């Protein structure tokens, strides 16, 4: 039986005028997938976005840094022209080629904008 897939690990970090996004993974592809989730988190809570509709993305670059740049900008482009948000990402990387899929749904800002919602948080003493 295969081990269950780990949820993408990502974070936002402080940057004066903008937002820093960071993704972690055991492979480059996993890190790219995680940074996609971080990009979503810069806009809204990823859990509010249903991963219903796939969008295919292809990127090709001269080096891995440029590939990351292209990947992030491809996500931004698809968000903009399709007016969608994405919460699940698949990034297959072979050298400096990326074959990816973005999974999301149409933008519904009032539902997906969670700043006004409640947060439940606690520490469990074990």
């Amino acid at each position, binding site marked *: 039986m295969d081990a269950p897939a780990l949820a993408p690990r990502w974070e936002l970090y402080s940057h*004066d*005028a903008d937002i820093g996004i960071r993704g972690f993974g055991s492979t480059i592809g996993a890190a790219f997938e995680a940074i996609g989730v971080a990009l979503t988190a810069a806009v809204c809570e990823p859990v509010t976005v249903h991963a219903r509709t796939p969008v295919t993305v292809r990127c090709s670059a001269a080096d891995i840094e440029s590939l990351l740049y292209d990947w992030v*900008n491809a996500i931004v482009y698809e968000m903009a022209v399709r007016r969608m948000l994405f919460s699940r990402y698949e990034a297959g990387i072979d050298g400096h080629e990326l074959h990816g899929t973005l999974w999301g749904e149409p933008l519904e800002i009032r539902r997906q904008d969670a700043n006004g919602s409640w947060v439940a948080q606690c520490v469990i003493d074990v």
Partner: protein
Amino acid sequence: MDTSDWQRVSPVEWRLSPRSGMHVPAVLYADETLVRAMDEKVREQLVNVARLPGIVQAVYAMPDAHWGYGFPIGGVAAFDPKQGGIVSAGGVGFDISCGVRTHLTGLTRAQLEPRLHALADELARAIPAGMGRGGYLHLSHAELTDVLLGGARWAVGRGYGEEADLERIEDRGQILHAKPDCVSSRAFARMRDEMGTLGSGNHYAEVQTVARIHDATAAAAMGLAQDDVVVTVHCGSRGLGHQIGTDFLREMAQEAPTLGVHLPDRELACAPIESDLGRRYLGAMRAGMNCALANRQVITQLLREVFARILPAALVRILYDVSHNVCKEEEHRIDGASRRLFVHRKGATRAFGPGHADLPEALRSIGQPVLIGGSMGTGSYVLAATAASESRSFSSACHGAGRNMSRHAAARSFRGRAVVDQLAERGILVRSPSMRGVAEEAPAAYKDIDAVVDAAEAAQLARKVAFLAPMICIKG
């Protein structure tokens, strides 16, 4: 920021002498409190900019300088094409020609107050704002090409505004030598439905009242009086500008070695002005500038229509429209001789002093209006450019308060609903589709606008004319 290796020339001027490959010094205009609050990245980025080929005189940082993409926001740098000078997409920024336009209304605060809520609600309904919110115009490729060539003049020709509007916009509302064929199909696709929209982030439409007059003569020339109501819009070139920046930053970074340009920071991607890539970027950037000018012109018309419905006594006229995030070809005097330079102003405002031929006749004697936005809780300033700004900053001044807290930290620290309620208690109505956006734009996330403007005035870049207090804020 550590000031130990900066020479303090005056209480608001700091100089970093050339080192580490810098061709020119870095000059920072700010008081000590502002300087110490700046990130060390500001210094690092100023040093990097000063190392670029063909840079002239100095790299300047405005009092609101902060960490940006390659160039610091609040950074000004001019390059001479005859000396191998470069043009940098990072030195312009992604939101090409993001800018501020202030309108006079002919109304007083007393006339507005009975209709304040009605005006707020109608502005929120009628002015497209927020992520994913499209505009009323859906432009074909051919129509958008006309926009990219015509700018605000295109919009006036389509019935969005009046011919008289154009003289109150930099370059009379149309940037020449734009090249729409240098703009990618992706950029066109992103702009198709976005003409006449505010966008999100720190973009806004704000109804304000003149709360203080600092310079009565200049205020009178600008048509500003105590308790007057004005409307200010802050927005830019939307998805088109962003895509142009994205496309050319990539190409410039990739081609730098071929073009013989050493990039101290990949984010400073640039190309020689006199190269094919440099010329293509300039053509595309100018197209982006026209897009922003057209965008604000369409919004002006939307504002006029809203006021006609809610406050028909209003007469909405443009005071002035300034752009940040641009590279402009300008003549400047260096060591007594006139030189043609390419001046990058990233998060900085052009500030042509009194007598400049490019200014409209009614404003020429007092200098160009410089419109400085604060936060939705603190207010904004109208300044007038000084003659001294030419020699001190290539005729440039600051553009806003600048952030002192990241968006991420602000969204974690504040609840948008609470910010809206707190401002409402002070009589400021906020309308936004995104409470997260409001949280990110909380007043406490911004620097002290008074300190920034005081420093700009003390540095002789511009002088205070009026302080504007917010009454209604429409945010994306």
